C-alpha cells in the first residue's frame, strides 16, 4: 500500500501480488494524519470489496509519504528553537545565503530584483548565541571552546523555554569535537534544570561541507520533523491496531525507504515527485531498459527526471521551503508548463504567452465554471474537443465549453486577430513546444543520444499533450499507463529500503601520481568507506533488517582539481586496496565526466580531487509485479468503443474515434486520430500516430506509427 498525503487529498494505491491495482481517495486530516490515512486506505480496499480489517493482516508493506512536515515548515508552525553557533556567525539565520532571497523564483522574477526577499528565519536572532571556538578546514583546533559561554548560552535558552537546542559550528563535519562539547554543556544545563529539551548537532544530521546548508538541515530537522515523527508513529500505531504486522515506512528524497524512526526525517521532506523516477526504474527493469526519462505534466508544472544507463542523477544542494540544503535528492527538473496555465496576449507587444500564472484547483480553468475568468490550456483542450465535457474526473466535474470559448475569444483570439480554434490549437502547441524544449535541454546535458532513451509520460495532463511534447526528439520508445494519474504513488511502492551515508573529505590526486601516492589515496578512501558502511549497516539492522540481506555500494564525489562541481562516481571496485583500484576509480570518473560534458572540457593535467565519500546500503523489499498477459487482436473489443466525436487537429475538425482506456487489452492497436478516455486522464492520439498496448498493458506511442501496416 502506498499512500501520498497531499495538502488537500490523501491518495492510496493498493497493489496486489499480480500487479493489479486500485486507487482510493480521502481528505487529508492535518491534525491527526492517521484519520485521512485510514479512510483513504478503506476507500481503496472497498474497490476490491474488502473491509479494512480484512486487508491489514495481509498487507506486506505500508508506505506513507506526506506533506505534513513540509507544511509545518512553510506555515512556520514548528518547535520553539534555540541555536548555538560558532561565535561571529550568529547572523547567519538572517543573512542566510543571499540566494535564498530568489533561488526558487521564476526566470523573470530572479532578474526582477524588487521581488527578492529572504525567507523568514526558523529561529529568531534573539535566541541565537555564539560560542568562541574555531576549527579549520583540516580539522585542527585553532581556538578552543570557551566553555563558560556555552554554559551561559544554554541557560539563557532554557530561560526562554525552548523545545530544542541546535548546535552548528564551522567544519564540524571534519572534526565534531567542539560541537559535541557545546552540546554536552547544553545537555548538562537541561538536566540540571530538569528540562525536557532535545539537543541536535549539525554534524550528526548531515556531516558535509557548507555551513549554511548544514545549519538549515539541523534547524529544519528540529523545527518540523519532531511533530512529523509523532504523526508517523501515530499512523503506525493505528494500522498495527488494525492488524498490520510490520513497520510503516516513509520515502527518502534520494529514493529509498526508511522506517518512521529514521533519525534524519528532513531527508523525507522533498520526496513527493521522485516516485516517478522510482517507478521508471521498476518499469525499466521489467522491459530491460537502462536509460529513461520521466515526464509528469500536471496542472501547473512539467517535471522531468532522468535515468542514464541505470544511473539516477542526484541534486546535492536542493532547496527546501526556500532554504538551501546539502541533503542529496533525486534530481528533478521542472518548468512552469501544465494544462492549468493561463494563456494570454500582451496588449502592448501582441506576444502570445503561457503563464506563469496557473488557475490552480480553485477557481480552476474557466470551463470548471467555478469563477475562473482567465482562459487556460485546459480550456483550449476542451474547445478543441480533446477533453470530454461529461467525463472529466469520471464525470464528477461537468465542463462548460461555451464559457471557455467566450474567454479565449475575448482574451486571445480577438486580440491577435485569429480564429478561435486556430488560437486554441496554437496555445496548446506552445505548451507542448515549451515542454519539448525542456526535454531537449535535459537530454543535451546527458551526453547520450536521445535514441537511447525511453520516455515515460504520466500525470493528469501528460497523455493529453504527449502527441506534441515529445515529437521530433527521436526517443527509442514512448510509454504511458492506464494508471498515469497515480504513477508517482505507484513508484514509491517499488523502492527498496536504503540508507545513504557520506562525509566530506578533501583528497587531491596529482596528474602524475605514482604507485605510492595512489596506494596512499586508496587506503584513505577505503578507511572512510569502511566506517561509513559500518554506520549504514547498523542503522539498517536497528530498523529490523537481516544484516545478511543488506548490501553496500561505495561511491565518490569527484572533480578535476580546482573545479567546484562534483561528478558522482559509483565505485567500479568494491574496496580500494591497490594503486590499480585508484586508477580504476580515476578512469571511471573520466568516463562519466566525458559523458556529461564536452570533450574540450577535460583537464586531467590539473589532477583530481575526491570531495565526498559515501556508501549506499540497501535491503530488498517486496514490490508490485508488472504482469505479462497474452496479446489479443489489434482491434479492441466492442466494450472499449465509446463512439465518435469531432476533434480539431491541424487546423480542421476530424471525426475521431473514442475509446475507454480500462477496456483496452494487450495487443490492441489504436490508430490516430483517436481519444482514449479514462476517469483520471485522457490520451490523445494525433492523426498519423498510433498507440500499441503491449503484454504488460503499457501503452506505446508512435509518431507516424499509423502508416505502418498491421
Amino acid at each position, binding site marked *: 500500500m502506498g499512500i501520498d498525503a497531499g495538502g488537500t487529498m490523501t491518495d492510496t494505491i493498493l497493489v496486489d501480488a499480480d500487479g493489479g491495482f486500485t486507487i482510493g481517495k480521502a481528505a487529508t486530516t492535518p491534525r491527526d494524519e492517521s484519520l485521512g490515512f485510514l479512510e483513504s486506505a478503506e476507500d481503496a480496499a472497498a474497490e476490491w470489496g474488502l473491509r479494512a480489517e480484512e486487508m491489514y493482516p495481509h498487507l506486506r508493506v505500508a508506505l506513507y509519504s506526506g506533506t505534513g512536515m513540509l507544511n509545518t515548515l512553510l506555515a512556520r508552525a514548528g518547535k520553539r528553537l534555540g541555536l548555538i553557533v560558532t561565535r561571529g556567525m550568529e547572523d547567519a539565520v*538572517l543573512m542566510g545565503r543571499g540566494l535564498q532571497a530568489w533561488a526558487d523564483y521564476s526566470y523573470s522574477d530572479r*532578474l526582477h530584483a524588487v521581488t527578492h526577499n529572504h525567507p523568514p528565519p526558523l529561529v529568531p536572532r534573539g535566541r541565537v548565541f555564539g560560542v568562541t571556538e574555531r576549527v579549520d578546514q583540516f580539522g585542527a583546533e585553532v581556538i578552543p571552546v570557551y566553555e563558560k559561554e556555552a554554559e551561559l548560552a544554554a541557560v539563557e535558552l532554557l530561560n526562554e523555554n525552548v523545545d530544542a537546542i541546535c548546535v552548528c559550528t564551522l567544519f564540524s563535519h571534519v572534526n565534531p569535537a567542539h560541537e559535541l562539547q557545546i552540546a554536552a554543556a547544553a545537555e548538562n544545563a537541561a538536566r540540571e534544570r530538569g528540562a525536557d529539551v532535545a539537543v541536535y548537532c549539525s554534524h550528526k544530521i548531515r556531516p558535509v561541507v557548507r555551513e549554511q546548508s548544514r545549519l538549515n538541515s539541523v534547524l529544519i530537522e528540529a523545527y518540523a520533523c519532531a511533530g512529523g515523527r509523532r504523526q508517523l508513529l501515530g499512523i503506525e500505531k493505528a494500522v498495527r491496531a488494525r492488524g498490520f504486522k510490520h513497520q510503516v515506512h516513509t520515502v527518502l528524497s534520494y529514493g529509498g525507504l526508511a522506517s518512521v524512526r529514521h533519525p534524519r526525517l528532513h531527508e523525507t521532506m522533498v520526496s513527493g515527485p521522485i516516485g516517478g523516477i522510482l517507478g521508471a526504474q521498476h518499469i525499466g527493469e521489467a522491459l530491460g531498459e537502462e536509460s529513461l526519462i520521466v515526464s509528469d505534466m500536471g496542472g501547473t508544472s512539467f517535471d522531468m527526471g532522468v535515468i542514464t544507463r541505470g544511473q539516477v542523477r542526484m541534486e546535492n544542494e536542493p532547496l527546501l521551503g526556500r532554504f538551501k540544503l546539502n541533503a542529496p535528492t533525486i534530481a528533478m527538473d521542472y518548468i512552469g508548463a501544465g494544462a492549468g496555465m493561463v494563456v494570454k496576449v500582451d496588449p502592448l507587444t501582441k506576444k502570445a504567452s503561457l503563464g506563469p500564472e496557473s488557475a490552480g484547483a480553485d477557481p480552476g480553468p474557466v470551463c470548471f465554471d467555478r469563477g475562473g475568468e482567465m482562459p487556460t490550456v485546459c480550456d483550449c483542450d476542451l474547445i478543441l474537443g480533446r477533453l470530454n465535457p461529461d467525463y472529466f474526473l469520471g464525470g464528477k466535474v461537468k465542463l462548460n465549453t461555451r464559457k471557455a470559448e467566450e474567454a479565449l475569444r475575448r482574451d486571445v483570439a480577438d486580440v491577435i486577430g485569429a480564429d478561435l480554434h486556430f488560437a486554441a490549437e496554437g496555445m496548446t502547441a506552445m505548451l507542448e513546444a515549451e515542454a519539448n524544449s525542456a526535454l531537449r535541454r535535459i537530454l543535451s546535458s546527458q551526453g547520450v543520444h536521445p535514441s537511447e532513451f525511453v520516455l515515460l509520460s504520466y500525470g493528469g495532463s501528460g497523455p493529453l499533450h504527449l502527441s506534441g511534447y515529445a515529437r521530433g526528439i527521436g526517443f527509442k520508445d514512448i510509454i504511458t499507463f492506464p494508471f498515469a494519474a497515480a504513477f508517482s504513488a505507484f513508484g514509491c511502492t517499488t523502492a527498496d529500503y536504503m540508507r545513504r551515508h557520506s562525509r566530506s573529505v578533501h583528497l587531491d590526486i596529482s596528474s602524475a601520481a605514482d604507485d605510492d601516492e595512489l596506494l596512499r589515496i586508496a587506503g584513505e578512501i577505503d578507511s572512510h568507506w569502511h566506517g561509513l558502511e559500518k554506520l549504514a549497516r547498523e542503522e539498517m539492522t536497528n530498523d529490523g533488517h537481516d544484516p545478511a540481506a543488506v548490501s553496500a555500494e561505495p561511491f565518490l564525489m569527484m572533480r578535476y582539481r580546482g573545479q567546484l562541481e562534483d561528478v558522482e562516481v559509483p565505485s567500479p571496485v568494491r574496496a580500494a586496496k591497490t594503486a590499480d583500484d585508484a586508477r580504476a576509480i580515476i578512469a571511471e570518473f573520466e568516463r562519466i565526466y566525458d559523458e556529461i560534458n564536452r570533450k574540450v572540457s577535460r583537464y586531467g593535467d590539473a589532477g583530481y580531487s575526491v570531495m565526498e565519500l559515501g556508501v549506499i546500503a540497501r535491503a530488498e523489499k517486496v514490490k508490485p509485479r508488472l504482469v505479462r498477459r497474452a496479446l489479443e487482436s489489434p482491434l479492441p473489443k466492442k466494450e472499449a468503443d465509446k463512439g465518435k466525436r469531432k476533434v480539431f487537429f491541424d487546423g480542421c475538425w476530424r471525426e475521431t474515434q473514442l475509446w475507454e482506456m480500462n477496456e483496452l487489452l494487450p495487443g490492441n492497436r489504436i490508430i490516430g486520430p483517436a481519444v482514449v478516455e479514462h476517469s483520471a486522464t485522457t490520451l490523445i492520439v494525433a492523426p498519423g500516430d498510433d498507440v500499441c498496448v503491449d503484454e504488460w498493458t503499457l501503452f506505446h506511442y508512435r509518431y507516424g506509427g499509423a502508416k505502418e501496416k498491421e
Partner: protein
Amino acid sequence: MTDAPVTLREKLRGNDRLLAETGHYAGIRDLRLREKDALKYETLHTKLRALCVAGREMARRISASPGVREVGESVVALYTPEGDAVALSNGIMVHVHTASRFIKWMIENGYEDDPGINPGDIFANNDAFIGTVQAPDVIDVVPIFYEGELIGWAGAVCHELECGGITPGGDVALAQERYGEGLFVCAEKVGLNDALRRDYLIRCERNLRMPIYWILDEKAKVAACQDVRESVLALIEETGAEYYRRAIREFIEEGRRAQLARMRQLTVPGRYRGNTFYGHVTRGKPGLQPLGPPDLLYGMPMELTVKGDGKMLLDFEGTQGWGWHSMNCTPAGMDGGMFVTLTQHMNYEGLVNDGAWLATELILPRGTWTNPDNEKCATATSWALLLPAYGCFQRLLSRAFFARGFREEVFVGQVNSPMIEMGGESQYGGRFGMAHFECAAAGSGAMAIRDGLDTAYVGWNPESDMGNMEIWEQSMPMLYLGRAITPDSGGGGKYRGGCGFTSTWLVHNTRELTLITSEHSARVFDNAGMCGGYPAPTVQWHTAVRGADIGGRAKKGLPLPHSLGTDPLRTLPETLLAGGTVEKCEGPFITAPFKDGDVFCHSYNGGGGYGDPLEREPQAAAKDVENGYATEEFCRAVCGIVLKKESRARAAREADEKKTKELRGEMREVRRKKARPVKEWVREERERLLRGDVAPEVRRMINESIRFSAKFADEFRGFWNLPDDFVFAGDGDDNNSGERPGQ
C-alpha cells in the same frame, strides 16, 4: 550578377546603413514571419533562448571559479553573422552587447582575411577597448557555419578570479595603465578544430597566479558555445536556413519595438536629472606610480531623456576625464552597466537582445572616464564608477516609474560592494591568487513600499549571493572570526536601505598574504536616498591588527573580536587587540603582506533609504535593533524613535510611542529652526566658491567638468551667478606629471 553583400564587413555596413535609412533593424519594416505564423516564430525564439540557458548550465558544471559556480558570473548568447545578439541565457546581463562589439571589431578589422574565420575556430577577448567591461571578463566566441556559410556566432563570458596583474585577483586597483592589469587576450584566435591551442594554454599557465580558474573557464565557455552551435545547426535543419536567417533578424527588430513599448508603458516621457559622486583616496599608499593626483573626486551628472516613442537617452555630459587609475570605463562597459540595470527593471522576461540596445542611446563624451581617448589607461575596476552611475540611473528610472504610478517598481538601487583580492602563499603551501566574491551580496537601496534587501543584492548580478564561509576558507589562508550584519549600514528612511555585512578574518597557515581591496568610495557618498531618504554611509575604514596574538588570547580565554562592534569611533579589534599593531585605512587597502595570526576586517555596503526617516514605523525600528540591523542610537538620532526594553523576552525591544512622538516633535522643530531662505544660502555658497573655499579635489572636479563641457560650464556659472570665465584658481593638480586627460 547581383550586388548582394559578399563579405561580412559589407554585410555589417549594409545593416548599419539600412538601420540609419529606415530606423528599423536590417531595414525590417514588417515582421513577416511573425505575421504569417506567430506561433512557429515564437517557438523558434523560445528554443533559441532555451539552448543558451542549457549552454550556461554546462559551463557552470565545468568551471573552477566560485564566481561562475557559486555566484553565477557567466552568460551564453547567440549572435547574427554581423554580431548582433539574438538570444541570451540568464546570468550577467552586463554582456548583452559586449561580445557583440568584440565580433564587430573582428569583422571591421579584416579578420575574414587574416587570421581567417573558419569552422572550428575559437576567438577570445578581454580587452575592454575591443569589447568587454574589464580584464577579468573574458569572452569566447565560435563561428557557426551552415553548409559553408557563416550563419551566426555563439558566445560565452565568465568573470575570472585571477588575471595575473600587478596585484592578485582581477579588479586590480593598483593598475594605473593597462600594462598592470594582467593577461590580455586581444581578439585572439585561441583555438582551431574545436580545441584550444596548446601554446595558448601554456601562456595562461605561465602568466596567471591561479591558471586553473582561467583555463577551466575557457574550457567551460568553449564547451557551452559548441553545444549552442550544434543545437542551432539542428534547428536550422528543421526550419530551413532561409527561415532562420530572416527570423533572427525579426527577433532583433521585435526586441527594439518591445523595448520602446515597455518604456512607453512604464514611464512618463521627459527629462530626469541626477548626480552622484565617488571619492578615491590613495595618497601615500605603496605601489602607486606618481602619474596623476592620488586623491580624486568624481562627479557624475546624468540626464535621462525619455522620448514620446519610448526611446531612451542617457547623457553623461559634465563628468570628468579619464585618469591614471583603474576606474576608467569603455563604451562597452557603459553598455554593460546599463543593460544589467534595465534587465532588473523592465527586461526581466528574458526577451532582451540587441534590439533593446538599438532602442536606447548612451551619450558618452569623448575623453571622459566613460569614453577614454587614450587606450593606455586602465579599466580594471571600472565598476567603482559604473555602480554609482547606474545606481543614479535606477533612481532616475524610479522617478519615471513613480510618475506613471508604478510605485512598487521604485528602487533606490545599487551601491558599490568593495571587493577584496588576495594572493601569496596558500594554506596548502603553494602560490595562489583570488578575488573573493562574497561581495556579491551587499545591501540594496530601499523600495517605495518596503525596506531594502539586506545582504543579498548587487547591481551587477541580480542573482546575488555570498557563498558559504567553509567554501571560501578552502580557497584562502584565512579563517572567519565572524561574518555579521553591519548595523546602521542601510541609509535611514521611512523605508531604510538594506544593510551590508562585515567579515572579520584571522590570517592562518601562511607566511605571506597580500590583501588588496577596491571599489569603495571614501569621504563622499557614492549612493543616495530618494524622496527624503538618506544615503547609506560610505564604506567602513579597514581595520587590520598585526601580531594580534589570537592564539595566546584564546588560551587564556580572553574575548576576541568577531565584528567591528557598534562604536563608530573605536572598533572592537582596536579595543580588544591592543597589544598588536593597528592599521586603519581609508579607501583601497594596499599595504605590506600579512602573516599567520594577523586580523583583518572588510565591510560591504548598504543601500540608500526612501522617504523621511521621521515617518518610519517605530515598531520596525524595534525589530531592527532586535536583529542587529540598527543601533538604538541610530533609531533615536536619525529616525526620532525611542525604544524601551520589552520585559518578556531577552532581546526583544518595543517602541515607546509617547516618547517617540515627543522626540519627533522636537526634531521637526530643530529642522524648522535650521531652515532659511534658499536665496540666502545660495548667496553664502556663492561667496565660498568665489573664495575657492572648497576641498582641492572639488576644485579639480569642477574645473575639469568646465573644461570638458561648455554646457556644464554655462549651467554651473549661470546657476551660481559667477563670471563668464570662472574657474577655480590653483586646482591642486599636484603630482600630475604624466599625460593629462582631455587635453
